[in-house]
């Protein structure tokens, strides 16, 4: 990319995307599907955080919760209420699945904000699996629960008859675009934020503008803390919305 030439010309080093490189943890060599990489490490850390918060944090089963337990309870209640509000009571069955998505994305995002870390959710491969996973599961649920009448989702029975086929085509397209937007939204947000921080960090090498650059890094870091939560939230609530469409396809 452009930064290769740029870096050699001015002495500024811009490698905003290097933080996303997938590397083997041990040694060099080609990356097989089973190779432990930095992806493995940071996903494992996310899993450990989930275990620490939700298993070790709640081991007291206290009526009056400890701090960690109340955090776990707040997250439980947050997602549970979201599912109940968006999908209705029959969506509660899928609570563990949606909770899994939420806590994984949340912890991956937040761990990715640590300096020198790697962010799995900045990779389209990861978010695409999450997004298409939701798409496939939700579509299957739709057909299993409703049978062919699930297709009524695309047939607006309250629209004028002439417009219905047109609307149906648009609805079908938008339905199939869902997983793409669902996954690219997450990866794009996380990647962009991290890359921008790196770009400003590159400018910090110039003494004259380094204070501005550092201030900008702080500001964007603050924004990224917000984005890390909001993207996890958005991914989860969209999952709930899609699930609602699958459970109640008739508008």
């Amino acid at each position, binding site marked *: *990319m452009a930064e290769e030439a740029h*870096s050699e010309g001015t002495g500024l*080093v811009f*490698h905003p*995307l*290097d*933080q*996303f*490189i*997938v590397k083997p943890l041990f040694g*060099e060599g*080609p*990356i*097989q*599907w*089973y*190779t432990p*990489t930095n*992806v*493995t490490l940071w*996903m*494992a850390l*996310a*899993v450990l955080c*989930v*275990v620490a918060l*939700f*298993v070790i944090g*709640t081991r007291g*089963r*206290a*009526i009056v*919760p400890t701090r960690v*337990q109340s955090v*776990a*309870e707040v997250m*439980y*209640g947050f997602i549970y209420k979201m599912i109940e509000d968006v999908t209705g009571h029959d969506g509660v069955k899928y*609570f*563990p*699945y949606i*909770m*899994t*998505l939420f*806590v*994984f994305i949340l912890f991956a995002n937040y761990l990715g904000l640590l300096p*020198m870390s790697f962010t*799995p959710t*900045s*990779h*389209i*491969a*990861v978010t695409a*699996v*999450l997004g298409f996973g939701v798409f496939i599961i939700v579509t299957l649920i739709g057909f299993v629960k409703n049978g062919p009448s699930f297709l009524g989702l695309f047939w607006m029975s309250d629209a004028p008859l002439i417009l219905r086929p047109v609307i149906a085509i648009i609805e079908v397209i938008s339905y199939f675009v869902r997983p793409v937007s669902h996954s690219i939204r997450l*990866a794009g947000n996380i*990647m962009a934020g991290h890359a921008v921080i*790196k770009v400003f960090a590159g400018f910090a090498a110039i003494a004259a503008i380094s204070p501005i650059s550092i201030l900008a890094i702080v500001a964007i870091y603050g924004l990224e803390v917000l984005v890390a939560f909001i993207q996890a939230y958005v991914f989860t609530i969209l999952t709930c919305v899609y699930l609602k469409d699958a459970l109640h396809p008739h508008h």
Partner: protein
Amino acid sequence: MATETTAADAAHGAAEAGKAGMPQLDFSTFPNQIFWLVVSLVVIYFVLSRIALPRIGAVLAERQGTITNDLAAAEDLKQKAVAADKAYNDALVKARTDANKIVAEAKAEIQKELDAAIVQADAQIAAKAAESEGRIAEIRAGAMDAVSEVAKDTAKELVAALGGKADARSITAAVAARLKG
């Protein structure tokens, strides 16, 4: 980290050529990422669905139960407090009524005693008055007798002094006639 990668470029050689663009689009790492992602998700899913979520759900339900019970107990105690307050007020009202009754009884008793005493006193006064009247009448009668005695004696003496001779019967009759007149 970044500079090291640049330095290692030569070593990587051909492998690095594919990473010229975004690392996100380096398809050779996709199987690896997807594999570890699926492993992580499955682990999180089982940890959450088998251990964490039922536990938290149970804790929340238990807390809800405890709170409901406590609220019910509080409501119960409040009812008791209201009942106790009512009993207290009732007792107060009853005590006041009793006190009034006792006062009224005492007053009535005193009144009765007073009435009796007044009646007795009246009777005594009446008896005394009657007695006194009797005495007065007696005295008056006695005085009348004494007057007629004196009048007779005086008449006899007068008659004797005037040189007459008067018998007792005519003098008595004359005095009696005079006294009546």
